[in-house]
């Protein structure tokens, strides 16, 4: 793991505080993610996970502290980031093919016009091939299953060959079977991408992550994919052995604190 820590820092958050009005959402958050690292950030609802992502993407600015992505301000490097949102507000009823959705991943400020070049289409087809959805390129998104839709949105995030992949609750709309297929896919991607996943689902830890973060206003980081006692208490506010989740949940024992 020390080799990973010696690599170039892709994401750097230093002493970040963020408030919505007077309500603190992030308090003194420090985080460094190295090139090639696959990190999962766990947190409960309202813990600040989506806010963290928005800070990384440059959609929000911290009240204090610093956010650097590839050593620069996030807004200046958005074209190097692939993003999979929680897609709550996507209007899937508008007439648009799978290919057009993936091509949206190439839209940028300053790029105009109504048609895509052959090179853009080739990139889109390659991205669809990576997620095994190329044969659906001419289909409407509404005709696909939840897992297939998620693959299309992943292709949209990958089409621009990003250096950093950020995923927000990627398994929230997938059934348990699809979830583990998705984790296998993420594991294969992690060989060539720096990946940050935020989730409230402990099962993400079976996706072959390198390191783990826990976020509930404050952030605790472990360069190993294991929950420490402090992390567990930060997440759930109780000792592991009294928490009903650990008695009933299908979570890999190796990640839980002893």
């Amino acid at each position: 793991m020390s080799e990973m820590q010696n690599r170039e820092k892709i994401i750097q958050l230093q002493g970040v505080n963020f408030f919505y009005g007077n309500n603190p959402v992030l308090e003194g958050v420090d985080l460094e993610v190295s090139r090639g690292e696959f990190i999962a950030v766990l947190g409960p609802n309202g813990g600040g996970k989506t806010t963290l992502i928005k800070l990384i993407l440059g959609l929000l600015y911290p009240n204090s502290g610093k956010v650097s992505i590839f050593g620069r301000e996030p807004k200046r490097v958005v074209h190097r980031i692939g993003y999979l949102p929680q897609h709550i507000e996507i209007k899937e009823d508008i007439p648009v093919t799978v290919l057009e959705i993936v091509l949206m991943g190439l839209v940028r400020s300053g790029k105009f016009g109504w048609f895509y070049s052959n090179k853009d289409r080739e990139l889109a087809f390659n991205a669809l091939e990576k997620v095994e959805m190329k044969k659906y390129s001419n289909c409407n998104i509404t005709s696909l299953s939840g897992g297939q839709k998620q693959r299309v949105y992943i292709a949209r995030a990958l089409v621009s060959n990003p250096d950093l992949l950020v995923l927000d609750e990627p398994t929230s709309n997938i059934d348990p079977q699809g979830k583990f297929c998705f984790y296998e896919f993420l594991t294969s991607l992690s060989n060539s991408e720096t990946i940050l996943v935020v989730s409230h689902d402990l099962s993400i830890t079976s996706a072959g992550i390198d390191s783990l973060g826990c976020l509930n206003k404050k952030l605790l980081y472990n360069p190993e994919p294991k929950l420490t006692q402090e992390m567990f208490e930060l997440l759930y506010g109780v000792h592991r052995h009294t928490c009903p989740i650990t008695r009933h949940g299908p979570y890999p024992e190796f990640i839980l604190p002893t």
Partner: protein
Amino acid sequence: MLDILSLEFMQNAIWASLLVSLVCGIVGSLVVVNRMVFLAGGVAHTAYGGVGIAIFFGLPVMITTIGFTLLASLGIATATVNRKFKTDTVIGIFWATGMALGIILMDLSPGYRVDLMSYLFGSILSVPGIDIWLMLAVDIVILGLVLLFYKNFLAISFDQEFARTRGVPVAGLYFLLMAMIAISVVMIIRLVGLILVIALLTIPPYLAQRKAKSLGKMMLLSVLWSIFFCLVGLFIAYQFNLTSGATIVGTGSVCLSLMLGWDQFKKINSTSRVQYR
């Protein structure tokens, strides 16, 4: 019937129908996919304030109304872009205030009141030649803007949050779309009046959306549907001496009902075939 095509007012009406259909199809498609129908209705009714200003001060009606409606729509856009205020409340306020302003200024204006009805219900048969050229200019501008920003409009229509992360100027495009709605609405008022503007902005795109596979094709189909409603409605209105605007919208409503009925019939038919097997 072909005799009527030699009449100048009918030629102007047909040209106006074709030119307005272009904006109905293009802008209407964006209104429908972005779920801004109520907003477009608010802009349309606010436009009446511009009509009142033009008549009260003796200014050219179309240009004055376009200017006033543009300002009003940008005001609505400013109040609603970040959803700081309740969108439906803001629209309702502009809607009512614009109408009230127009009516009061009409009351204070000397002369005949026929203009009141023509702007409420349309007056396609009295479109002057100069307005046709203005409509053509507006069509060229709107078509140019949509072609230039098509990819961006598609991205924000489908997933605004993702578009924002790609650096697309979402707020700027929202303002641009509101401006395009304002200009389109003033053109459509000429045909069907402000009461029925929403119909031409929604029925053709709704019909097109059911068959189109892309936003571009939806716009094209929508334009064709609009042309069909306008020309057939115009013909029926002429034959039976009816209000042209209402007849155009009535044609659209009948087509919509027939298509929905046909789809329902096919659905019931295929369900009963499965049961009998």
